[in-house]
């Protein structure tokens, strides 16, 4: 088990190295190497999750270790699909190290499963978890694209065309890609929240119990809903959209970690140290 995680980390780190080498040397084969190493890591990562699933018969999100393994898996997976579609080469320097760091953290925290109360492992729960994670991984990518947009825009506005200006793609592409990520993320988050509500009704008898995680997820959802609404009505794009994607990422991180560590609730066990 441990060995699979180590392999995953190894591949993610190698992929990171590949992408950084591409950043400096701009040789296409380096980009491809980074991409395929990431896929290799993703397969190892999937194997690790599948193994835990077989062992416990439940989707493995019972402690911070398992949750982080799934976080790393979703970031890598969503990025692989994203890269395939947009071919935004330089973006690997954000996604690959992120996946690697998450997995390193995962391997460092204890993997003792917590005592689980009141968990019914059914279709709704699996659907809830998977779509929430994919949605959040998309938001994480959107945040990264937001940073890149701001960097590129800064270079163009200040007329200082440095190292990154040459390597970053056009503003239009960054903006479109970020928008796509947010649309995908928002769709998945909506599905995740809806299935979560159904699950809560089935298990606890009520849709909404003012659990802090629920509240903050609702806030996150509203934030991205507002961003999409503004974009569709008055055309919030470019700089404002990029800043909003970054703000969204901050709120998302708080919802994911902050709520668990600082506030209590029925999601807490899964991400507690």
């Amino acid at each position, binding site marked *: 088990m441990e060995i699979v995680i180590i392999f995953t980390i190894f591949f993610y780190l190698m992929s990171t190295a590949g992408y950084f080498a591409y950043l400096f040397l701009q040789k296409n084969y380096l980009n491809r190497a980074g991409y395929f190493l990431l896929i290799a890591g993703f397969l190892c990562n999937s194997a690790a999750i599948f193994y835990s699933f077989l062992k416990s018969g439940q989707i493995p999100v019972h402690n911070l270790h398992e949750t982080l393994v799934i976080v790393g898996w979703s970031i890598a997976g969503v990025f692989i699909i994203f890269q395939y579609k947009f071919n935004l080469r330089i973006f690997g320097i954000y996604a690959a190290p992120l996946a690697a760091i998450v997995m390193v953290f995962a391997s460092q925290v204890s993997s003792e499963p917590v005592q689980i109360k009141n968990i019914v492992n059914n279709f709704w729960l699996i659907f809830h978890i998977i779509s929430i994670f994919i949605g959040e991984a998309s938001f994480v990518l959107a945040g990264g694209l937001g940073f890149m947009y701001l960097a590129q825009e800064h270079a*163009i506005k200040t*007329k200082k065309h440095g190292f990154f*200006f040459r390597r970053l*793609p056009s503003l*239009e592409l960054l903006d479109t890609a970020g928008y796509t990520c947010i649309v995908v993320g928002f769709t998945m988050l909506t599905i995740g929240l809806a299935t979560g509500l159904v699950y809560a009704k089935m298990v606890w008898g009520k849709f909404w119990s003012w659990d802090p995680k629920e509240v903050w997820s609702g806030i996150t959802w509203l934030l991205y809903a507002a961003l999409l609404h503004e974009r569709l009505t*008055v055309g919030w794009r*470019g*700089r404002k959209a990029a800043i909003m994607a970054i703000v969204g990422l901050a709120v998302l991180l708080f919802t994911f970690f902050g709520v668990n560590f600082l506030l209590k609730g029925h999601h807490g066990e899964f991400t507690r140290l």
Partner: protein
Amino acid sequence: MLDIVLLGLNHKTAPVELRELLAFSKEEAVAVLEGLQKCPDINEVMLISTCNRVEVLLTTSNITNAVNSVKTYTSEFKKIPISKFEQALYMHDGEEAVRHVFRVASSLDSMMVGEPQILGQIKDAYLTAILKKTSGVILNRLLHKTFFVAKRVRSETGIGDHAVSISYAAIELAKKIFGNLEGKKVLLIGAGEMAELAVEHLVRNRAGEIFVANRTFERGVELSNRFKGKAIRIEEIPDCLKLVDIIISSTGSPNFVIVRDQVKGVMRSRRNRPIFFIDIAVPRDIDPDINRLNNSYVYDIDDLKGVIEENIKDRNRESIKGERIVDEAVISFQHWFESLDVVPTIVALRNKIDSIAKSEVSRTLHSLEHLSDNDCQAIYRMTDSLINKILHDPTLFLKKNGCHGGRSAYIDLTRKLFKLDD
């Protein structure tokens, strides 16, 4: 022994007045090739003539004579005394000539490093030489290698990356903003060579509708016809800003033609789609404060010049990599060229021995008249196989790669030993 020789002048050694005098048109080039081909000392020859250089590339067994014939011929052809251009001439032979051709074709020797035209010009010159049959084994091989090297330098280094002219730099920037220029609407305000060139680049990038605004409407109509666009009046510019994505301005107006508030006002109805102003005019036409607005970008002529300077520095840095590729290619070409020398040596050696044997045999057979024809044939065959057996080892020795770079020395020795150079 043949040598590759390059004789010429370029923008570094000759002023434009002299280059003009010596430049050859295509028809003249054909005549020159025909003329030079007749010179006894010139084996193969080709002529490269562009606005920045005139060069003659030839192979010869007598460098001094060949060079003198080219000088004399040129001076007679162009009716200019040799003394007038002799100072500007440079002459390279052997490895240096090969290196020079590679560098020129790779655009490492150009006035603007990395400019792409020179390769096409050399290809044309080579084609002319082929049609006139003035190129042979050596030049063919050299030129094919040259095209290969030039291609490699272009694809493996950034020597041709990034614009070095104002209008191209503006287009590159537009691509960094819009990604794809297809369908982007353009507004040209005023007229001017640089601005019109930029519009032409945009059209080539399949930009969308072109609007032209001019102080005199008639001139505007004239220009818009050229770009198949639409002429508008100066007063219509604020409204037009709602539509267009790229504005190129180049008027003689002393005041700003477009001010900040006008752009701010249209951004909402543009739904914040990005807008890019290229201001080529001095004094400026576009309020620089517009650059502070979200999703709008302004570049004036100084900004664009700054971009170009950076790009030129970049190209010069990249040219170092190009030089390395050229060095590699020169070594591999020289290797081939030297191995080529072995063949004529072996052929000469064989011919010499063959002729000695043949003459001795026929003299002997004269005094042996009782032999039948069949017997004579048998003796000739025996002579042939003797020659083959004797020359087998020396031939192998000269051909094999074991001479460790000293091959030219062995060839030299062989030639002296058998007195092949008569």
